[in-house]
């Protein structure tokens, strides 16, 4: 009987291998590294602005778009609430965390094989994805956590990003990949600015040409729409959010600034009341999202002038760039006015690029201009959205207290807290 059993079991092939997926051990080889790095890029895009990302709600939170829908998630964000204790909101930040791990684990895997890959353009690119992933997490979260470890100050994300960008610059230069090098400088400039290293930020910014840009790529071929530009998707096929009632719509109507295009659909959005105005900065689902740009570097340089006592020169620099685009100059009578113009200009330049969280973080520490900290009550963009919405949909925004107590960063999701013993899980 036992022989019969063995024969039956043996011949029926309990050793069945199913095709399609890739065994983990098969990635420990050099010819798999290109796919590994491509995957880092794909996972980063997913975490930044792909399906189930927090990009849309984050944009609503900071007044970049308005939630013209009945969707509860968007309306929470519109009120300035990020309810991380709601199980159905668990997923929005998880992809960004996974993207960081994928990049850093990939770097580890590549380093462990040794050889030429350490100084290759592939490694430089991997470092960029690790850097931008950490920066994204710093822009999103109120605290930092790495690999199931303890909570750390938010700045840890930016510091880690800075390290990765430094490596990217070094490897990029040695491998002759100029684009990767510029992206490394641009990324490092942005995080140095956030960390308060203005001179370091300016030094890095000076290395980046004005016409340079590095993007998170989106496409319409990745399965499940994982890399379809979510901000486009929510204002075009789905009509769940709208540029209507925002400062950006008012500004565009006033100036026609090509950096913040939007289009009135002449109908209501998903809630039946809010005017549906679509985002045209991303004209379709394949629109890439800039991660660092030369124009942002010029604004860093302008900021250095404004903060360094030469506010008029800084403002002139900004207005010169505006004149080239064909939009009116900002007017300022004081350093405070000039800095306000700078904030708005940065908001325009980085509209819907998921950067406002980091902006709030660094401005909140800029005691030179905001001795009591920078809050949503100080933010022109958020205040304009609230005022417009109150005038149009008074019942929705009746609670004025939220104007002062809006969230500006995300706590850890419920699944992170439940699975990390260091966070009480």
């Amino acid at each position, binding site marked *: 009987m036992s022989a019969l059993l063995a024969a039956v079991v043996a011949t029926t092939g309990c050793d069945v291998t199913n095709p399609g997926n890739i*065994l983990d051990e098969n*990635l420990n080889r050099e010819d798999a590294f290109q796919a590994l790095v491509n995957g880092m*890029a794909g996972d980063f895009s997913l975490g930044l602005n792909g399906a189930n990302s927090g990009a849309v709600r984050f944009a609503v939170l900071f007044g970049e778009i308005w939630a013209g829908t009945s969707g509860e998630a968007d309306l929470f964000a519109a009120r300035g609430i990020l309810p991380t204790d709601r199980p159905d909101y668990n997923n929005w930040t998880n992809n960004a965390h996974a993207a960081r791990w994928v990049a850093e684990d990939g770097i580890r895997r590549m380093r462990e094989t040794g050889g030429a890959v350490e100084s290759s353009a592939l490694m430089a690119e991997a470092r960029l994805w690790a850097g931008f992933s950490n920066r994204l997490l710093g822009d999103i979260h109120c605290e930092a956590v790495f690999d199931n470890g303890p909570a750390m100050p938010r700045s840890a994300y930016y510091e880690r990003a800075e390290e990765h960008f430094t490596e990217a610059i070094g490897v990029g230069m040695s491998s002759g990949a100029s684009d990767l090098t510029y992206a490394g400088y641009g990324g490092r400039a942005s995080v140095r600015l956030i960390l308060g290293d203005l001179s370091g930020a300016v030094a890095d910014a000076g290395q980046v040409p004005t016409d340079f840009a590095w993007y998170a790529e989106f496409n319409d071929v990745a399965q499940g729409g994982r890399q379809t530009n979510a901000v486009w998707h929510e204002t075009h096929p789905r009509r769940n959010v709208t540029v209507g009632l925002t400062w950006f719509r008012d500004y565009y109507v006033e100036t026609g600034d090509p950096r913040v295009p939007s289009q009135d659909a002449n109908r209501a959005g998903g809630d039946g009341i809010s005017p549906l105005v679509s985002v045209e900065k991303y004209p379709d689902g394949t629109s890439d999202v800039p991660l660092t740009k030369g124009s942002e570097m010029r604004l860093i340089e302008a900021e250095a002038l404004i903060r360094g006592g030469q506010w008029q020169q800084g403002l002139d620099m900004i207005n010169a760039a505006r004149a080239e685009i064909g939009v009116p100059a900002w007017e300022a009578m004081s350093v405070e006015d000039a800095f306000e113009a700078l904030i708005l200009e940065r908001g325009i330049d980085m509209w819907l690029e998921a950067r406002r969280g980091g902006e709030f973080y660094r401005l909140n520490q800029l005691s030179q201009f905001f001795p009591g900290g920078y809050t949503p009550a100080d933010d022109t963009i958020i205040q304009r959205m609230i005022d417009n919405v109150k005038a149009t949909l008074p019942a929705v925004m009746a609670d004025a207290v939220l104007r002062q107590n809006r969230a500006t960063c995300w706590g850890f999701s419920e699944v992170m807290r439940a699975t990390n013993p260091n966070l009480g899980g």
Partner: protein
Amino acid sequence: MSWTDVYRRVFSAQALRTLLKVCAAVLVLLALPARGAAQTGTVTGQVTDATTGRGLVGAQVFLVGTQIGSLAGGEGRYLILGAPPGTHQVQVMLLGYPTETQEVTIQVDQASVADFALTPRAIDLDEIVVTGTAGAVGRREVGNSISAINAEDVRGRAIKTMDDVLAASATGLDILYTGGDAGSGATIRIRGVNSITQENEPLIYVDGIRVYSGHYIPPKSGPLPGLTTASTPGQRSSPLNDINPEDVARVEVIKGAAATTLYGTEAAGGVIQIFTKSGTGLQQGVTVWDAKITQGVSHLPVQWGPHGRPSEAWFNTHGPESEGIFLDQWLDYGYFQEYSLSARGRRDELTYFLSGRWLGDEGVFPSDQQSREWTVRANTSFAPSSAITIGFNNHLSRRRVDWIANGGEAEGFMLNVLRGGRDYTEDQDELVLELDFDDYQTHWISGIDFGYQPTTALEMRAALGFDYVEQEHIADTPFGSWFVPRGERGLAGFRTETKTIDFRTTYRADVGRIATNTSAGFAVFDNLVRHTHGLSTTFAGPQEPTLTSGAVRQVVENRLREVNAGFFVQEVLGFADRVYLTAGLRVDGNSAFGSDFGLQTYPKLSGSYVISDEAFWPAALEVTKLRVAFGESGKAPGFFDAERVWSPIQTKTGQPGVSPQNLGNAALGPERTREIEAGFEMSAWDGRVGLDFSYYYQRTLDALVPVALDPTLGFQGSQLLNIGTIDNKGIEVGLDTEPVRTRDLSWQLGLGLSTNRSEVIDLGEDDAVQIGGRIWAREGYPLASYFDFQVTNPDEIAEPVYAEDPDPRFGRRVFIGPVFPELNWTVSSALRIGDNLQISARGEFKGGQVMFSRTAEANTQRGTWPACFDIQQKMAAGNLSDVTALQRSRCKERPDRGSLTTNADFFRLRSLALSYDLPQSMVPGGLSSLALHVAATNLFKITDYWGLDPETWNTAGEPQLTRNENYLLPPVQRFDFSLRMSF
């Protein structure tokens, strides 16, 4: 797609050509002249009910040890031709009556008479059962509960699908209808749910061949991330409904691990075995033709509304902003038609059953929602010698379902209609009908069964089977449509093939008063599942698209294979034909087990005691059997669950990438369900009362629990660990009575009751696992329960006060109720007047469950939910003097979801039917019988459910333990008229 295209597609199927060849061969055999008749005699007589004197039509009468027999016809009279001369035993068998035998002496060219007067028994211990046993055994030997549904049991009911055959037919068997779309299929549960992550559906066998027991899967569901098209129908069809109910002779249902041990890994959800008809029992050379024609109409009455509320408000009313919610303008009467024809007979050693059926079912929506199908079957058996039988059964079916977009999608039809102007189409709801969803479903089952019985003691059976299920789901959004202006075409191909190899041998021996029955065998199931999805978008212009039409094309392919193999041994000892002890063991291996996991063993132990055979037992309790059973069976993990894998992705257009997919677990093994069951079966008062009682207790060990993963470690989602423990217990009571039984009048009344209470005992380190949305598995609560806000002062004129959960992680999310019913009862009544007229009714109650109504929530947010109209006006005006806390909670602008998760208990009158068998004198020439049948389905319901309907829930794209009502069509009423004739 035109009819020509459909015809061409159907008749291009290789399987159909093969089947037609087989049918042609059979028909040639039928055309052959019968063998020259040897010198024989005849046996004739009448089979009657001993208590009423009525003739028993359909009784099988045959010569023991031969294939020679006949069926009793009108008035119970039978005639057996071609009987060999000599002394023979004539045996009569009929469900509900004990088997009886008489000795007759047959002489050449003479008629021998043998009349039988049978005393009815509500419980027939001589009934032969095969499911869950190693071979065919009498019910008296079986220590576990087994339910049998015979064709005669359902003849008087309104039956369209196999779901209807099974619904309200057996205690513990729960058929969960999901909506009223033509072509939709129900979900089946036996004794509740006992797995968080694996399928809870039972195994299904057809004539001993394992068949696919899942559903036809549309996109947005299933194991693939897939490619998402604009929308989904929200419903899905069931391959079980590919079986023509007219082909079914009998269904056996075994319910728990105590009974399903011999089926091993996979069987913890129970087993349903369907036996189709054959030509057995007919006279030599006779072919009996049966035909059925049904014409009917489906309808969703606009006067239908939840209990206690103005019914017309649901579908025909104006909201406070003068918005119409006119669903009724979209509803129509759906035409239903069915035509079936079968032939069965016997010619020498060959028996056959051939059938065909065509069914057309128009839904109640005016545009396109319909289902059309045809089914053919060819069953043959051949006995080349007295020791050998060879059976060959084939089924082929083809269905086309035209769906419309529905469910909670922005493009859903019900969503846009019921939301009035505050929707996605600005009241141009007909725009949704531009989206087109078509399913083409093919199902082929083929099996060969070899039986060899060289002696009465030794029997061997081998079965080879092949089950092929295929669906092509096409989702078209035309160029220029309002939702996807550039157009889109999605094509999802799903195919599953299951190969069965089954061998078993049984040796019987008697040692004094002890009968032994030793069995052994093995079975192999090789299952291959293939998904191929294509998505094509951005067309150049208006056209009849294919996947090649779009400028952007994506494709996903998945091929998954699972092999399960097992070996079993079983010993049955019978003492004095009244006490039976059974011990068995099954050993299984499965390709989905982790690499560190070996074979799995499942033991079984049961006993039955026919105590009514004892002298001390009161004669009034004519038949009583006590039974107890213990056993184990399992459920395997999914194809890839054990392995750590990355998935290939596309990044940077045209470039390959990899992304973490599954963390894996090398120690992964199956879930193991252990069950103990005890009960009894009893018949009394000349068979007027039959009682079947069972108590069961199941514990599922090593339950696969999805332990959430920290996303900071890269692999998201969850990792399956065998760390859970889940209990299920309940009782099942079946009471069949015949309060009135006379020659000309009979009234049968049946009651069925089943309870099921599950409880999560242990989930490892964490005591709660989220299943989906607000549905959790949590220790101390039923598996799959809603947790959400609950108002503690519902009737107070005050602001709502919410309950608090003692666990701070849950806060105000307290237990509201289980997702699945915990109490089912059925009531059936059949009144027979004279020999010809029967009136029957069947009702079903399901209770103990709650369900969330997304329809109510979304409509309330828009001020378009009729039950909240008045309340919302009062709230807007600040007039709350008579608005209760619960009303405020339900009708405020952002209603509390917990308050919209309400009691979903319901009673529904499933079937009301009248059958009239024309007297022989009135039957037209050429026919042997003619019956008229009028039936109504879902005539009325009683419920307090707050949403649209408690039997309406999304099944497409939802986790299998969730139920949410979300803009779907409720079950419809149907009225049928049928003619059933034999010739």
